């Protein structure tokens, strides 16, 4: 499991690589929360394009960050095109509260459009 970060303005882009299960989730959570406390982070995009597997532990991680970011009036978006993971995001109800894009670029563009208004 690898976690890579990049920034676009006040957007933190979290790129997850590998298989996100309960075993990986502690490490992933610690890494993300270390970046989230930086004052530059207001919005988060989870880029799941390089995940080959995710189960409900991933749902827990995304929902946890969603709650934290909502408290500071930030936005969360997810980039994903893996059919299995999309099915999981769909059934968990995440797709009702978080916008899902087919890739990270689209998510960034949309979020910059919204936050700049």
């Amino acid at each position: 499991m690898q976690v890579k970060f990049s920034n676009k303005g006040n957007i933190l882009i979290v790129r997850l690589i590998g298989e996100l299960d309960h075993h990986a989730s502690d490490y992933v959570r610690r890494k993300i929360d270390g970046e989230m406390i930086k004052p530059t982070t207001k919005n988060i995009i989870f880029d799941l394009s390089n995940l080959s597997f995710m189960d409900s532990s991933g749902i827990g991680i995304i929902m946890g960050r969603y709650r934290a970011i909502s408290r500071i009036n930030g936005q969360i978006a997810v980039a994903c095109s893996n059919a299995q993971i999309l099915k999981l995001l769909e059934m968990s109800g995440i797709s009702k509260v978080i916008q899902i894009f087919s890739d990270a670029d689209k998510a960034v563009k949309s979020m910059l459009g919204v936050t700049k208004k």
Partner: protein
Amino acid sequence: MMAKDNGTASAGKKKPINEMTLIFPALSRNESFARVVAASFISQLDPSIEELADVRTAVSEAVTNAIIHGYEDKAGNIKMICLLYDDSVEITVIDEGKGIENIELARQPLYTSKPDMERSGMGFTVMETFMDEVKVESEVGKGTKVTMLKYFKSLKDKERRAKNDK
């Protein structure tokens, strides 16, 4: 060992064409190992990529539950049994951990006894969505047995297509 009974997973009285039992300690790094073993075992039937992913996800949920809820990160063994039929697989995940008091409540979407661990409460819902039948048996202080059945519909489709081609 088991008492309560929810759902109706069962592949009937047919004889499996192959089977396996895997026993491993409740360590989180065995979650991915259990997924690989289940996926590799069912691939002999040549299911679709989606069906493979469904089974991998459901196995991951059941094994994770045994580790974090059943044994609560204490030592213990998990048993995974796979019975392979010509059109389906039945996978059973058994722990001898703390057990579930209220199975009906536990199966509700979003219910979790460990919100502090950022569990989503979606584990059982994922199993139910990705598999065709899920049966949960549990006894407090004795352990939990989750039995999941998956039909490989893609094989039927393949057969049908092969017939039509003739």
